[in-house]
């Protein structure tokens, strides 16, 4: 019974972790890209430098959901909470 509760809670936590981090990163990516498009429309000659900055920004933002995904996979596949109960 305890095992089932922990497993269910872990899966819910995984869903929340992945969903919320993807939501935030999606909003962030959208903001960065839209501002880059605006900037390029205003000053087309700046496109090269703006694109570099955009890629750096997107790299920063994309790192967060991927770190979240790593922690979530750790929760699922090497569950530290479950081992508290089973005592292994």
């Amino acid at each position: 019974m305890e095992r089932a509760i922990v497993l269910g809670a872990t899966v819910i936590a995984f869903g929340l972790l992945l969903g919320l981090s993807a939501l935030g990163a999606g909003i962030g990516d959208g903001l960065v890209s839209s501002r880059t498009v605006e900037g390029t429309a205003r000053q087309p000659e700046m496109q090269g430098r703006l694109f570099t900055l955009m890629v750096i920004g997107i790299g920063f933002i994309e790192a967060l959901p991927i770190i979240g995904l790593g922690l979530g996979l750790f929760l699922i596949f090497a569950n530290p909470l479950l081992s508290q109960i089973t005592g292994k």
Partner: protein
Amino acid sequence: MIGLPLLQIDVNHPTVNIAGLDFNTDTIRNTLIVCGLLLILGAILRSQLKVGVPSQLQNATEAIIDYINNLTEETLQGRNIALGPLAITLFTFLLIANWLGLVPGFKSPTNDWNTTLGLALMSFVLVQYFSIRSRHLGGYFKHLLLVPPYFPLTVIDELAKPITLSFRLYFNIFVGELLLTLIIVLIPTWISWLPGAAWTLFSLFIGAVQAFIFTVLTVSYIAIATGVEEEHG
């Protein structure tokens, strides 16, 4: 590993114990493979070097080197530091290292926190070294104690840089390879090539972007640390 028994994926590195220290053999082997690839690439490029019409390989390499070099000089404008070679070495090493994990049978050396933390510590030491060199020891401590109550925060800020720098690269590559394994294990074989190919393409992009970010951040941390008396807002 505890958890779902069907999906036991081994992410631990095989280690060998020498003189009380654990060495991850696969990471060391793959790092040496990347170094060997870079050396061979350098030797081939050196033997084909031409002044007239360059070969395609020479063209591509020159484009990368020019790009990173210009970026470094733009970031470090006015400072008497030559960081171009370091930035180019870091970028090419990380690029080949990140992409090596996408070749079946190989794993990225950056798949191991030890590699990325080592590189990040190198950049941390460089930042402190250039900071002391440009401001001298007195100026260095004056900079740390600019607002005395914030001294702990400044120290934490400095110490957090290598940690975030290494975690960003490590987790991106580690999760990328883990997901590739998971796609093969979890998805039926007749369709698994589709998400597999999509994720591989995305991993190519991620690997290049993360190598680029690591390089740019190292350079810009040094640029911030050697700034000529900038305002602290």
